């Protein structure tokens, strides 16, 4: 059978081709197809899980097909790596709370970048790309640059998301010039290494420069811009994987890298469009730094109308329609279940409840959707910006749970504001607004929010989870 396959696939070439090479190549080919079909099925929540299972089969096939490869002479390092990876990977996947998903995604990008960079370094040490010509050498070098940037950049993003590092942008004079210089240096080293591959000193210098570049590129980027950064790093990881596929002449790597790179790029574009900012502005703008906060003019919260959870409940009892707008604050307070409880109480009262999800609410694409899904909110109650924005003016009460910049009318009204032009949820159009917030502190962008001082707005201060619990209790209590 394999012999027949070999002769079909390799007609004209030597008949002595190793059957195991055929198994290897065919299994990677089938794996690629399964990945594509799986991705296609991921476009619909009904079929998404089956799509993922197809990709799992593809991955298993690819690994098994590779294990029979005739180049492999010893298995102990392979098995060691597979066992360690599985032992760490399974509990990590099972135990990580949904609120920590951005951190986990950032960490996994770091792991992906590291793996690809190490493959490139090992290939260079083994002397393969040097023998295989300029294109292979260029691919390996590019792979290492992207892999190393992804590795340290994602660790930085993780540090900022996990608040091990300050979430505010860290800037110093000449920072952008230095980054551009380092990037130019890395590309210069790439060119020199392609022309003169046998210069290990330059090779190690390139690895070092790329690692430093990853740190420096993420340093000036603030917490609220992390969705874009995570997507871009995702894209870099993909490009690195594709480059390694070119260097190793391995199509499945090229394909998966292209898919990964493409998805990261698309998501980054969606995110930056939802913030009305360019990539350059996100990467070099140091958004949300002290300068921007000062320009916002803090401390004019004079005519804020503050209410108790009981006041909010009174308002909600007579509401016909309610839209809930979750933001990063809901994730921080882990208030997704409390939010769902309030929605259930409202629905029991005959109120029409929907959720409005801004594309950049939270710290990664789809962050709010996952949290609400965890709290058993049916996904047909979740609406995207364009689908629900017209509805606010016909809505009795909007409840803002820990969102800030994505509901700030300044984006529409004040051309001087740093977020001017960003599409926002038109919460200010609804008849009444209840804002759940920890304090009057401005959001991550450091901008005053005039929504909070509108006459129809009631601010309820405190921990979102506790406040929501009190409102729900007050609603039920008053109902009898």
């Amino acid at each position, binding site marked *: 059978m394999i012999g027949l396959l070999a002769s079909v696939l390799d007609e004209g070439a030597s008949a002595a081709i190793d059957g195991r090479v055929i198994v290897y190549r065919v299994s990677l080919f089938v794996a690629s197809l399964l990945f594509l079909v799986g*991705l296609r099925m991921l476009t619909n929540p009904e079929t998404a899980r089956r799509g993922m299972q197809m990709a799992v089969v593809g991955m298993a096939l690819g690994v098994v097909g590779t294990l029979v490869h005739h180049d492999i002479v010893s298995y102990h390092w392979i098995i060691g790596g597979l066992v360690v990876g599985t032992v760490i990977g399974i509990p990590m996947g099972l135990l990580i709370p949904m609120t920590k998903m951005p951190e986990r*995604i950032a960490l996994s990008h770091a*792991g992906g970048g590291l793996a690809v960079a190490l493959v490139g370094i090992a290939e260079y040490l083994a002397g393969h790309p040097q023998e295989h010509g300029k294109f292979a050498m260029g691919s390996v070098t590019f792979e290492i640059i992207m892999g190393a940037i992804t590795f340290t950049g994602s660790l930085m993003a993780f540090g900022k998301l996990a608040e091990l590092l300050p979430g505010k942008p860290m800037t110093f004079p000449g920072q952008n010039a230095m980054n551009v210089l380092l990037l130019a240096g890395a590309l210069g080293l790439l060119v020199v290494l392609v022309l003169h591959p046998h210069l290990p000193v330059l090779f190690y210098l390139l690895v070092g420069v790329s690692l430093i570049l990853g740190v420096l590129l993420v340093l000036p980027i603030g917490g609220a811009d992390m969705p874009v950064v995570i997507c871009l790093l995702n894209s870099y*990881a993909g490009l690195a994987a594709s480059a390694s596929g070119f260097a190793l002449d391995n199509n499945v790597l*090229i*394909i*998966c890298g292209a898919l990964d790179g493409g998805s990261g790029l698309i998501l980054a574009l969606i995110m930056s469009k939802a913030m009305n900012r360019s990539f350059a502005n996100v990467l070099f703008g140091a958004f949300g730094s002290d300068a921007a906060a000062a320009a916002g003019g803090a401390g004019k919260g004079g005519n804020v109308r503050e209410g108790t959870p009981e006041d909010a409940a009174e308002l909600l009892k007579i509401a016909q329609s309610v839209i809930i707008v979750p933001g990063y604050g809901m994730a921080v307070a882990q208030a997704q279940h409390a939010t769902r409880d309030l929605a259930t109480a409202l629905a029991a009262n005959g109120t029409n409840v929907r959720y409005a999800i801004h594309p950049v609410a939270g710290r990664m694409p789809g962050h709010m959707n996952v949290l609400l899904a965890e709290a058993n909110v049916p996904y047909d109650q979740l609406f995207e910006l364009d689908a629900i924005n017209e509805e606010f003016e016909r809505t009795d009460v909007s409840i803002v749970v820990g969102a800030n910049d994505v509901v700030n009318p300044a984006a529409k009204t004040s051309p001087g504001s740093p977020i001017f032009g960003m599409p926002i949820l038109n919460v200010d159009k609804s008849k009444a607004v209840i804002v759940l917030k920890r304090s009057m502190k401005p959001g991550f962008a450091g901008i005053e929010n005039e929504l909070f001082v509108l006459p129809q707005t009631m601010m309820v201060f405190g921990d979102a989870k506790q406040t929501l619990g009190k409102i729900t209790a007050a609603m039920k209590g008053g109902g009898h």
Partner: protein
Amino acid sequence: MSIDHILAGLYVFSLAAFLGYQIISKVPQLLHTPLMAFTNAISGVSVVASILIAGRKSDTLLIPILGAVAVASATINVVGGFVITDRMLKMFKKKGAAK
């Protein structure tokens, strides 16, 4: 590496990038987090390259060790990525099914 090899690789890359762009544009915002976890898991297919490096004949010990570390980190992504994608996708339910 011959020009044929390079061009064949570029064909594959261009077609995959085009197809990927078309498919991923259709993924709704609802599923963007699972999408990231999923593409992260499948890009862990670099494990196949790492396996070859970890198992190949080598004069130095450094190369298989680098390979083994690469196998481990790619495997964490593959295994962890699939587990977490599945956990997320299990949670997405329509009205009625949620109760």
